[in-house]
């Protein structure tokens, strides 16, 4: 099956992700896929939450922290500024405390707790995935292409979401028990039952958000996850391991795309030994890829002679990747 066929056969798969080690071409493929789909008349948002995001580089526009920026017709790009998002969020909490209790200033111990929270490493992951939920929930686009940070992040979050979920289950249970006590006490004292439990509502909200954020990555109906591989033994081994891990978390794997394949026809020409050796190395690796991934390999993208940067260079790449001439 080809990459284009996968998109044709599963029009419901609206969340597209390319995963793989750093530097294999995730951002490049995300941009090319966005380009292809936009040319086909779909409204596409390609977004990234990586603090060292490279969408700005590939589209040659500074879009960091600026919201959804139109790159060309139907193609929008967005780079989320996670740090600023965390700061805004903390400010929102401060404001809420001030409003709720009519305080002039946040008490010292509360303030230090809020400050310390941003130093926690998991804070960033949670903030990032919460941002993703925000982007996707709006539903303004036909396709959402998520330029993932290297695999570790996503896996870490998925495992965290599972723990979070169990944790929430427990505290929601405790909260419900507390509520029953409240009711019993008011009956005994013959008072009216107390007003709604805001904390319980917050817990429900949190549960909902966490559920949504992990669902975006694990929804077999709506998500397509592609692995990017290079024809190198080490990359193949790593990718295989990652694929197993992802399967454990039920991430629906749609297939593999091979990047940076050097044209074999060059062997017929008078080329330096260095290049000849590299082509031989790749030939072996490509055999391994064929054995291991077989028909799940959807596309082979050649090594280009210049860096993919700007729409003019994305176009030929998208054409090769999807095996189709684009206007």
């Amino acid at each position: 099956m080809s990459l284009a066929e996968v998109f044709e056969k599963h029009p419901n798969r609206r969340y597209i992700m390319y995963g793989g080690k750093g530097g294999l071409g995730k951002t490049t493929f995300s941009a090319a896929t966005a380009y292809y789909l936009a040319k086909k008349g779909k409204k596409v948002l390609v977004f990234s939450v990586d603090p060292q995001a490279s969408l700005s580089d590939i589209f040659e526009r500074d879009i960091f922290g600026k919201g959804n920026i139109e790159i060309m017709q139907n193609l929008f790009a967005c780079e989320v500024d996670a740090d600023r998002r965390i700061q805004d969020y903390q400010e929102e909490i401060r404001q809420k405390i001030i409003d709720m209790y009519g305080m002039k200033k946040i008490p010292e111990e509360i303030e230090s707790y809020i400050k310390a929270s941003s130093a926690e490493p998991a804070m960033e992951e949670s903030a990032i995935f919460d941002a993703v939920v925000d982007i996707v929930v709006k539903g303004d686009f036909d396709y959402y292409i998520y330029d993932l940070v290297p695999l570790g992040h996503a896996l870490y979050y998925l495992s965290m979401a599972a723990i979070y979920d169990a944790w929430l289950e427990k505290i929601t249970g405790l909260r419900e028990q507390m509520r029953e006590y409240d009711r019993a006490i008011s009956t005994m004292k013959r008072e009216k039952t107390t007003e709604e439990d805001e904390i319980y509502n917050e817990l429900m909200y949190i549960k909902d958000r966490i559920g949504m954020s992990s669902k975006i990555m694990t929804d077999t109906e709506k998500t397509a996850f592609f692995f990017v591989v290079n024809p190198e033994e080490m990359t193949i081994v790593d990718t295989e391991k990652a694929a197993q891990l992802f399967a454990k978390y039920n991430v629906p794997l749609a297939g593999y795309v091979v990047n940076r394949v050097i044209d074999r026809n060059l062997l017929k020409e008078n080329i330096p030994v260095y290049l000849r050796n590299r082509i031989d190395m790749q030939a072996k690796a490509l055999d391994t890829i064929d054995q291991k991934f077989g028909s799940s390999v959807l596309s082979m993208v050649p090594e280009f002679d210049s860096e993919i940067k700007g729409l003019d260079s994305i176009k030929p790449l998208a054409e090769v990747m999807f095996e189709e001439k684009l206007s």
Partner: protein
Amino acid sequence: MVEKKTPEQEKENIGSKIVGFFKDFTYGMATHGMARQALKTRSSMEHLFILITMGDMLGIPILPPYYSLRLLPHVVPQITTWKRRMLREKDLMDSMY
């Protein structure tokens, strides 16, 4: 204009006062202790809840704080008493159960 109470209303008033007295009396005799106990348990639970959501304030590592920050505004008034209570107990586990 001041409303004058009819003797019937006057009677009713006394009646309801007596009923009220007996209500309070039986409450004091029968349920007050129970209510007190329930309130105590309830407040222990409140503290347990804050402990498992914001325990890192006391140096107990708790799950990532992104979402627990959302709960923070709702427990601000209880934080001080909670901290005092948690740190006063001889055995932390005593205060949890």
